[in-house]
């Protein structure tokens, strides 16, 4: 085989018409949901062709969410990292500031798109699952904005560690339903979301929070989140007239990462690095599906999963509730297998250190999710030349995490 046969013409034309990214993705759902999933695909195709849909999406992103988010050169962080770097090393560190969005994370981009689809399909009731609560807050927000009843499934353990977000969702008029099955985290909340959906298919739209689930969710979530990468790409070109050498983003399900990466996938000179949560360490409890898992089928798609030899799904662990999931979006599994994106991981401890470093050097309190990306940025910057550029996605702000961080640092607040 020649290289040409092995390398696709474009990395940006996935999935195929059956919703597969190579061997990953697909529509592994109960028959009850299948007609609805096919409907959603038809509606999404129509919406994509409809200039009015795009216009409404863009208008809301600009005036309600506050886009475009800034592109920021983190000068003091760059200098700080250079202090420990070998001579001549220490790449420039830039951030895409999606933590400045309304509701404090990238999650709202996707929720705006999906609620417009829900309205287009005539659905009158919204459900969602949430881990850290960011997607729950974003969903509750768009439901309040459009006056639709909202039910959020959240693991009982996550409710405990994310009280501020639970209160936010309730203020926004959502009903937060605790999920006690399993370990009471994101995967269990997703199971309950699917159970609700299957019982209420006639009137309910399920706003999935990450680029995973049955086709067309991985595709449409990616498309809605791609605003991150599209903006970043044109901002980079207009600010410094070049593309970054390396993109870095944290990955739970992987929606902020695919949103940043996808518009750059065909820019051969741009390397990409996805960072999974290594929790207590890859040899212990963690949430790094690509590093520690293998392909399997869960929650409507085939992808890398943490599981045992019999295909029973393992519990994930991360200090970041938003990364605490034993799977990953199927497009990342594909990008890993074809080698276009490199994946690595960062432990709880490393993320906590990076969290504090960003607070002190840049006056930005990041969420624990992008703190994982920042830890990797430090590592990578030291290996790269000073004229090289790293662009990381600062996908959420850390207000929600101050209690978790205080506890980890042994402080009472």
């Amino acid at each position, binding site marked *: 085989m020649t290289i040409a046969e092995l390398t696709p013409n474009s990395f940006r034309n996935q999935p195929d018409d059956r919703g597969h990214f190579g061997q990953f993705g*697909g529509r592994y759902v*109960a*028959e009850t949901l299948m007609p609805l999933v096919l409907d959603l695909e038809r509606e999404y195709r129509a919406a994509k062709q409809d200039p009015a849909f795009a216009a409404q999406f863009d208008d809301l992103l600009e005036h309600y969410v506050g886009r475009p988010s800034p592109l920021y050169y983190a000068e003091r962080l760059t200098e700080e990292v250079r202090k420990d770097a070998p001579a001549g090393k220490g790449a420039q560190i830039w951030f895409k500031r999606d933590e400045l969005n309304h509701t404090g994370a990238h999650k709202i981009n996707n929720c705006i798109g999906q609620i417009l689809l829900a309205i287009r399909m005539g659905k009158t009731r919204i459900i969602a699952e949430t881990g850290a609560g960011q997607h729950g807050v974003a969903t509750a927000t768009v439901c309040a904005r459009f006056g639709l009843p909202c039910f959020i499934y959240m693991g009982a353990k996550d409710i405990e560690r994310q009280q501020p977000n639970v209160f936010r969702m309730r203020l926004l008029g959502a009903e937060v339903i605790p999920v006690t099955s399993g370990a009471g985290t994101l995967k269990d909340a997703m199971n309950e979301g699917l159970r609700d959906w*299957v019982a209420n298919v006639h009137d309910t739209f399920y706003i999935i929070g990450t680029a995973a689930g049955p086709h067309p969710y991985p595709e449409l979530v990616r498309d809605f989140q791609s605003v991150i990468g599209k903006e970043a790409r044109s901002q980079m070109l207009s600010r410094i007239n070049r593309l970054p050498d390396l993109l870095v983003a944290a990955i739970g399900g992987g929606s902020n990462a695919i949103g940043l990466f996808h518009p750059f996938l065909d820019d051969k000179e741009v390397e990409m690095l996805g960072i999974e949560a290594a929790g207590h360490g890859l040899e212990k409890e963690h949430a790094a599906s690509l590093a520690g898992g293998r392909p*399997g*089928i*869960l929650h409507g798609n085939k992808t890398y999963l943490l599981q045992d030899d019999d*295909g029973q799904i393992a519990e994930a662990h991360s200090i970041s509730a938003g990364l605490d999931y034993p799977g990953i979006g199927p497009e990342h599994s594909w990008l890993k297998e074809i080698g276009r994106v490199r994946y690595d991981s960062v432990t709880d401890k490393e993320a906590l250190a990076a969290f504090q470093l960003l607070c002190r050097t840049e006056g930005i309190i990041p969420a624990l999710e992008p703190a994982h990306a920042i830890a990797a940025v430090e590592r990578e910057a030291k290996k790269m030349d000073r004229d090289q550029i790293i662009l990381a996605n600062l996908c959420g702000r850390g207000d929600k995490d101050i209690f978790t961080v205080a506890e980890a640092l042994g402080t009472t607040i």
Partner: protein
Amino acid sequence: MTRLSTAFSKPHPALVAFITAGDGDTAANLDALVAGGADVIELGMPFTDPMADGPAIQEANIRSLNAGTTTADIFALASAFRARHPDTPLVLMGYANPMTIRGGDWFASECNKAGVDGVICVDIPPEEDPELGPALRNAGIDLIRLATPTTDTARLPAVLNGASGFLYYVSVAGITGLQVAAQTSIDEAVARLKAHTDLPVAVGFGVRTPEQAANIARVADGVVVGSAIVELVAKHGVNAAGPVGDYVASLKQAIVTARKAYA
């Protein structure tokens, strides 16, 4: 004639009884199902994330997995069942990941060795048939498909293409064990399905009383009961065989009587 087609050729509709493998004394409960008159056995493969199941079967899955049940244990239970009951059809029901983790061919071959007659996989719709369907068909194992209230007439041919054994009509849009479908909706659905297929049609989800079983038996070729049996296993633990056998016998009597009265 396969064991499944024989079971659906009896003068009365088939009673299809479900329990979760590895929950309680599974071998004794399987024997009780047969003794009580179950015509087809559905053996549930426990999964950590049973998205289509209600609380009763979710808890059975957790009890089984906490007791350490492995896929090898399930096939051992099936093999031993086949040795004790050469004629009663046995169907494995479960989720895609445990069935496909070692490949569809491996799973189909294990089914064959263990004397399993058919497989119901909740989360492999016809669109993803290549994952398991060809392997099962090559091994001569029936792939039992599900039709639901959302499966419209236009979609039905896709569901029936590659289906064998019987067609399982999930009578409610929902999860197992909770809601009960209105009998009129079941009557209409079964009539619609039977106009499109010669496969026997069995109806399940939410069926728990002999009266409900009898009403379904008047129109369908089979009645599936699951959560109500699983709840007895939960209540009686390792001593569930007696109550399970009695309950199944009451269902069977209602089904046989219903069809006689109707005929």
